[in-house]
């Protein structure tokens, strides 16, 4: 059997060929683009995978945290004496033991592992206990007595705007001005002039939107284990998405050289952005293990996961969008208030993303946005899947639907007319090389029967469309440096095995499988002969982590570079024996093949032996760093990405006019991921993202007690202010199998010159447009423009009643 390879159709920077891949799709399960089992699938199927909480060590202690029962208060005293005296308690620490400030963004280091002077939300960590077991630790935590002096709780952006001038109403002393974390104001082109033009000859839509916050709710709660050995090497094992940043901040907070800190990230049981920065638990287990000399584990309860939060920011958004008579978008203007919670987290970036990530794949001629993130006395918000851009995308895509309606243009056609195009510089200076928007729209349009059904279904039943784009990593790393954003080391040897070492974080999205695909594609080995070692700072090169959809692109490039170096050595060694050109040595399906002589073949093992004989010990490294930076203005690098994905959703809904309940009946989603290294995994990302979006529209709701409002006299039950109502998976409802509609996912491949084999992201983009697609479907179903998420039945029923009474008034 020969591997059917013909001359390339199109070769990318790092490319093998498309024709090649298409042929092999019919050919079994080898290499790029095949429906293949995940490299870690077997371990996960058998329960063998060890997550952080599955690990234990001899003598290990359990830690627990004392948390604030006040939304905003000064700590007057902390009495740990009773706790410390309890049998089985080994150590108790408070804020003074870990006073150094840290934060994922080096410019906004505004948190400490344990509260130092004041507490900023109900659930803020105050002290930590290490004890023989969790029961003892719990009892010790209960025995810690904290005295507070209550301060006014600032619970929403409206209040945050008018407070923060004095210490009592300042949520976080880091805020330089009032309670503002970050304000961003950017403008591109003549927005006011264009709006004026649209008002006189075209259409202008002015609308307000509110996106209630949501949280990630991964099924695995956060867990970390710290150990300090006799040489002074600290090891922290943590269920984190960003082990590298945890590593840096651990060294910083504990005052240790980075070389004496080891961070290991075991497989993570779901992240979605909820584990993408250092958290209290990592510092606490480190410190407690340094004090006690024992391994210390801290596993968050589900409730504590809610307090760790860093979920989607509530945003109050105002949009003014103008289009000419043909539906061409001329101006977009937005003003956004962002409710940030007690700490900055990624908030500085959030403020930028709220504006910067909107400029494609639907383009407009001028753009101005003003986004301000405020501190409030609630758990800190941060990056949830589609960081910063899901909320504006919801608002903008609903506005597009309104423009389509007013202009009498089909909503899909409106988006097509405003498509930015390929290889374009977007209005904010970001380079978009490729966008499969049109193909995405076509796919969902056909599959959903849009042309035959939209606007023609009986009342209560409707279809809606929306689209979006997302980044595949950011050009600019979180801390400024010129080092690679991802490094991969590959070793192969005479056994025929390839071992890949990467710092990339597996949070379920499958970087190990991506590495294996690349090894198979480049070195011809079978999947079973690939070993992957991920994310252990003692063993693996640095990778910045699993966030901003960067892994496939950046780690992929690094792996390609390393594998290509080794492939050349293998080809060269085999070519010498076969006396042919190295290019004629093909590697695939566990064998080396002669391109022109079907009689010649050998196993990859034999080929590797030849290479090892010729070149000595075999190993190579690869790294990825971005060449481009982004727009040439302050903030122009934020949101600038090597490649942008595209997504289109069509949702079909049924609205029950008696109960106000919206049932999403079916969702069609098409996503341009450039190139699907593993289609099964890409589909899983598209389906999972869509599911999460649908959940955010219909049921997920971060509700806080807000009585009394700021300035009101507190009643006896005043402590309700700032309490998260129902921090559990019973009260914070995420959909079950019976609440999730059938999702039909289509992969669109529009390769990007900056992606490995053309690949772009698939993990976050396909969430965005699911939300406005549902909103727009509700309009098609019952003529309601819902603008406040989530669309709870109570809100929908109220809106329906208002609609009925106004239409009956109109009839009079």
């Amino acid at each position, binding site marked *: 059997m020969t591997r059917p390879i013909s001359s390339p159709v199109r070769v990318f920077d790092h490319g093998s060929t498309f024709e090649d891949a298409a042929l092999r799709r019919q050919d079994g399960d080898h290499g790029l683009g095949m429906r293949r089992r995940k490299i870690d699938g077997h371990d996960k199927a058998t329960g063998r995978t060890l997550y952080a909480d599955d690990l234990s060590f001899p003598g290990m202690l359990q830690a627990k945290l004392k*948390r*604030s*029962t*006040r939304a905003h208060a000064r700590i007057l005293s902390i009495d740990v004496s009773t706790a410390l005296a309890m049998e089985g308690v080994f150590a108790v620490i408070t804020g003074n033991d870990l006073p150094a400030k840290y934060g994922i963004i080096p410019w906004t280091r505004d948190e400490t592992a344990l509260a130092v002077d004041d507490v900023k939300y*109900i659930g803020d960590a105050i002290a930590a206990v290490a004890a023989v077991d*969790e*029961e003892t630790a*719990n009892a010790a935590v*209960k025995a810690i007595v904290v005295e507070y002096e209550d301060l006014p709780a600032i619970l929403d952006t409206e209040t945050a705007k008018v407070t923060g001038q004095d210490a009592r109403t300042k949520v976080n002393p880091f805020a330089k001005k009032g309670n503002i974390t970050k304000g961003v104001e950017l403008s591109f082109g003549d927005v006011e002039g264009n709006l004026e033009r649209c008002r006189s000859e075209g259409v202008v839509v002015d609308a307000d939107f509110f996106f209630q916050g949501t949280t990630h709710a991964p099924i695995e709660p956060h867990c970390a284990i710290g150990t300090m050995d006799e040489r002074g090497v600290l090891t922290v094992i943590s269920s984190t998405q960003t082990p590298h940043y945890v590593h840096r901040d651990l060294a910083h907070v504990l005052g240790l050289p980075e070389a004496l800190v080891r961070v290991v990230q075991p497989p993570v049981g779901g992240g979605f952005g909820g584990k993408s920065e250092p958290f209290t638990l990592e510092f606490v287990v480190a410190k407690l293990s340094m004090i006690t000399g024992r391994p210390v584990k801290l*596993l968050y*309860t*589900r*409730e504590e996961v809610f307090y760790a939060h860093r979920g989607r920011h509530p945003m109050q958004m105002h949009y003014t969008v103008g289009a000419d008579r043909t539906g061409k978008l001329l101006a977009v203007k937005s003003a956004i208030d962002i409710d940030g919670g007690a700490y900055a987290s990624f908030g500085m970036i959030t403020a930028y993303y709220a504006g910067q990530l909107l400029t494609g794949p639907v383009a407009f001629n001028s753009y101005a946005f003003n986004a301000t993130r405020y501190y409030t006395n609630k758990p800190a918000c941060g990056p949830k899947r589609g960081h910063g851009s899901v909320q504006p995308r919801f608002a903008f895509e609903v506005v597009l639907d309104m423009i389509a309606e007013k202009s009498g243009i089909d909503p899909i056609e409106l988006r097509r007319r405003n498509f930015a195009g390929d290889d374009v510089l977007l209005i904010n200076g970001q380079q978009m090389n490729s966008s499969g928007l049109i193909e995405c729209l076509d796919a969902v349009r056909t599959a959903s029967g849009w042309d035959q059904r939209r606007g023609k279904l009986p009342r209560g039943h409707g279809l809606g469309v929306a689209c979006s784009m997302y980044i595949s990593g950011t050009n600019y790393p979180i801390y400024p440096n010129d080092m690679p954003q991802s490094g991969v080391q590959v070793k192969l040897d005479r056994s025929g095995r390839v071992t890949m070492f990467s710092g990339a974080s597996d949070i379920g999205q499958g970087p190990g499988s991506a590495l294996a695909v690349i090894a198979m594609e480049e070195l011809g080995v079978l999947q079973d002969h690939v070993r992957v070692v991920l994310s252990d700072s003692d063993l693996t090169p640095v990778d910045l982590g699993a966030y901003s959809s960067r892994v496939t692109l950046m780690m992929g490039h690094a792996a390609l570079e390393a594998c290509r170096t080794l492939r050349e050595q293998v080809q060269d060694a085999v070519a010498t024996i076969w006396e042919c050109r190295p290019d004629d040595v093909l590697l695939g399906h566990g064998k080396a093949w002669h391109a022109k002589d079907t009689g010649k073949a050998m196993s990859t093992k034999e080929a590797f032996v030849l290479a090892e004989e010729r070149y000595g010990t075999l190993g190579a490294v690869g790294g990825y760093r971005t060449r481009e930076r982004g727009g040439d203005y302050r903030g122009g690098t934020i949101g600038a990405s090597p490649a942008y994905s595209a997504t289109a959703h069509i949702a079909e809904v049924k609205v029950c006019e*008696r*109960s*106000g309940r919206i049932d999403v009946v079916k969702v069609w989603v098409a996503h341009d991921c450039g190139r699907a290294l593993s289609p099964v995994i890409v589909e899983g990302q598209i389906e999972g993202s869509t599911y999460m979006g649908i959940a955010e529209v219909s*049921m997920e*709701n971060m*509700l806080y007690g807000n009585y009394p409002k700021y300035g009101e006299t507190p*009643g*006896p*039950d005043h*402590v*309700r202010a700032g*309490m998260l*109502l*129902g*921090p*559990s998976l*019973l*009260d914070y*409802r995420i*959909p*079950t*199998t*019976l*609440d999730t509609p059938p999702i039909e996912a289509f992969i669109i491949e529009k390769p990007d010159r900056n992606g490995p084999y053309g690949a772009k992201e698939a993990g976050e983009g396909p969430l965005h447009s699911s939300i406005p697609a549902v909103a727009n479907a509700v309009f098609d179903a019952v003529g309601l423009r819902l603008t406040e998420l989530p669309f*709870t*039945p*109570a809100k929908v*029923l*109220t809106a329906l009643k208002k609609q009925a009474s106004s239409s009956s008034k109109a009839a009079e």
Partner: protein
Amino acid sequence: MLRMDPFLTETPTSVDEAVALLAAHQAAGRSTKVIAGGTDVVPNLKHGLFDPEVIVHIGRVPGLKGVVDDGGHLLIGALTTLHDLSVHPLVQQHASGLARAASLVAGPQLRRMGTLGGNLALDTRCLFYNQTYFWREALGFCLKKDGSLCHVVAGGKKCVAAASNDTATMLLCLDAEVVLQAPTGRRTMKLEDFYVANGIKNTVLEAVDLLVQVRVPKAASRRFEGYAKLRHRNAIDYPLLSVGLRVDVDGGVVSAMRCVVSALQARPHKLPCDAWIGRAFEHRQERQDVVDGLKQLAFAKCVPVKNLADDVVWRREMVRVLVQRAFDEAIGEAS
């Protein structure tokens, strides 16, 4: 993970032994709690809502499982699981509304663990109660547990935590009785008398009592029964509101009618339905007339309070919708 505070466990193997153990521990001043499936008690233990010194696990007591037809009644053992109840042919035949109510409790695993007795004895629920110790401490605790303040009704002196048991709603419609075993002997009482309007403890069950059997009278004539549950998710969730309905028809007219609305406050709310006795119930319009009247009555009588995070105005609106749904279910027109 959430850990429980230590307790001792007893595992009796007969009803007599169980009640004797309960009595002995009580007499010795030790607090006790009976556990069967554990689906309500264990979360409450983890939340520190229950703090017994002794747990009496009755899962191994024989003879308390299964459904028997004694001619006039279905006799249902208290340890019959909700799953078994929902699929039991006798229950489906003679008490279809009960089978449906049982099938809508929580999720599949909990229905295989949870028992009918446990569901009937389910502790009342409230947004401000079913939370961890930490959360309740931050709240300042509440009237029902560890505190003196009601957060649902400002200044409220009576706990309004809600009866949230699906099966009770339907069994009340079916005029069921419960059989309780105490050290002093057995007693049978109407389920209606089993519940009281006190959210702190909404049953008359004493610490030494064991609920051993549920007796459901079989229909004497043609019967329509339906159950409707309001919840956000189609699994796992407790009811935000529940409605049970039963209409017996004899000679084309209503001979008996019951409608119970629950998940409002501590005691399931039984609506007075006698006014409809004798009303024609054959034709579609006759039936709709009955339900329209019932909807009005239910809406007037049932006023949800803020014991859940959901909007009370909406929950009240849903009373009418659920009555209609239970009715549609009853006459086999559920969509």
